[in-house]
C-alpha cells in the first residue's frame, strides 16, 4: 500500500465541519508548563495539534477524529475538549 501522509488519509474520511465553533481549546501557559503541549502533539492520530516555532500549540480542530486521547493525557486545565455539536465532525462510513 502506498504510504500516505496524515492529511491524505484524513481526506478519505467524511467530515461535516462546524464553521462556527471549535470544540478544542488549549491553555497555552498550562500546556507549556506541564508538557501537555508536546504530549498531545505526539499522541494525536490525526495531527490536530502542532507545536509552532514560538512554542505555542496550534489546533486544527476540523481534522479531529474525536477519540479523546488528547484529553486523557492532558494535565488538568491544559485542554478544553468536548465533542463537536450534534451532527458535526467526523462521520465514519466504515467504522
Amino acid at each position, binding site marked *: *500500500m502506498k504510504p500516505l501522509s496524515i492529511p491524505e488519509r484524513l481526506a478519505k474520511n467524511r467530515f461535516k465541519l462546524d464553521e462556527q465553533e471549535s470544540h478544542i481549546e488549549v491553555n497555552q501557559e498550562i500546556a507549556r508548563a506541564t508538557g501537555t503541549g508536546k504530549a498531545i502533539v505526539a499522541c494525536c492520530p490525526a495531527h490536530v495539534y502542532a507545536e509552532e516555532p514560538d512554542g505555542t500549540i496550534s489546533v486544527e480542530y476540523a481534522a479531529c477524529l474525536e477519540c479523546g486521547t488528547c484529553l486523557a493525557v492532558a494535565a488538568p486545565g491544559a485542554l478544553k475538549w468536548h465533542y463537536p455539536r450534534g451532527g458535526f465532525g467526523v462521520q465514519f462510513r466504515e467504522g
Partner: protein
Amino acid sequence: MVGAGIAGCVTAYQLARQGRSVLLIERGESAGSKNLSGGVLYTRGIQQVFPEFLDEAPVERRITRNYVSFLNAGSSVAIDYKDSRLADPVNAVAVLRVKLDAWLAGRCEEAGVLIMPGVRVDRVLTQDGAAGKRVVGVQAGDDELRAHVVVAADGVNSFIAKEVGLRKQEPLNHLAVGVKSVVSLPRDTIEARFNLTGDEGAAVAVVGDCTEGVGGGGFIYTNTDSLSVGIVVRLDDLTAKQKVVTDIFDHFLEHRFIAPYLKGGELAEYGCHLVAEGGMEMIGEITMDGMLVVGDAAGLTLNTGLTVRGMDLAVASAVAAAEGIGSALDRGDTSKAGLAGYRERFFASYAGQDMKTYARAPAFLELERMYKHYGEFFADVLYGTFNLDARPRRHLLKVARKALKHSPLKTRQLVSDGIAGARAL
C-alpha cells in the same frame, strides 16, 4: 439512552420489547457514524438478543483463523490456529461498525424506540433528593428531556458518567489509543492472502516490534472486501517513551511481514478510538439514582492477550441493564438501590464472570518484556534449531539455555512470568 452504539442500541431494543417508552439520542448524523471498533465481535450474546443476527445483520466474515504472533524486526514466531469448529456454530465475526450499528438502530425503530440523531447531550439534569443527587434527565441544547432512567451509553469518554462522578479521570495505564485504517482489497485477494474459503475470516494479532516495543499490539482483521489494520498502544508507555503514535502506526504498516498483506490496497478510511484497558480494576460504580452506565462508558473491555473483547461485553451489559431497569420500573423504584439488579445480573452473566476471571490480565500484559525480549528469545531458540550451519546439533534445551544467556531475560523471570501468565490468562 445516550449513544447509539452496541450497548445503547441493545439496551434500547430490550426495553422497547418490554413495552417501555425509549428515546435514543445520538450525536452523529445517524446511528453508527461516530463509532469505530477493531473489530471482532464474539457473537453468542448478540445472537440471544437477535436470533436472526447471523443471517440478517451486516457482518463481514466468520473468524475461523486466529493468528497470534510475536513480531520482531526481522523474525516472527506465531501460533496459527485454524478450526472449522469456529465456523459452526459461529463464534466470532469481523464487523464494520457503521453498517452494524445502522442495522441495530433499524431493529430498535421497529421495536418502537424513538431515535434522535444529530443531537449532542450537553449535561445531565439532576435534582437534590434525600439521598443526594438524582438524575432526572438530560439537556441537549435548549431541550430538557426527562426520564425515569438515563442510560449512559456514550462510549469510553463518557462525559455524562464523569459529570455525575460515576467515572473519574483514568490513570494512563488503563487507557490505550487505537489507530486503524480500513484498506480495500478485492475479495479473492483477501481469501488468497489469508488462506480463506468463502466467508471465512482471519484475525491476526501481533505484539512486539509492531509497536516499537511500546505496550500494546497490532492487528489485521479480514472484512468481506477490505482489511481493518491497526495498532493499539498503552498511553502510559507511549508518553513515557515519547513516541509519536502515527510513527508507530507507519512502522507497523511498512513492516516487512505486514506490508505484503496490504499490497495494492486502497485506503478507504482512517480512524482512531480510545480503548479502556484496565479490565476489572476500571469498573467502579455503574449505577446511581436515576442513571446507569453500560458498555465502553462503564469501562467494559477485556484484553486477555489472545482474545480482545469489548462489543460482546457491551451486549451483555445492555441485556443486564434492560432487565435491571425493567424490574426497577415495575417496582416504581429507580433509585440506586432499585437499579441494583443491573450490577447483580451483569456479574452473574458469563461476561461479568469473565471480567473477574481475567482481573489479573492487565497487570500481566504491562510487563515490558512481553513487547520485545520474549519475541526475540523465541526466534533465537527456533533459529538455533532450524539453522543447520554445518556444526553438530544440540538438544533443544541446550539451544534454549544458550538463547536465554544472550537475552536480557532471566531464568527466574521465565518461571515467574509463566506462572503469572497461566494464572492471569
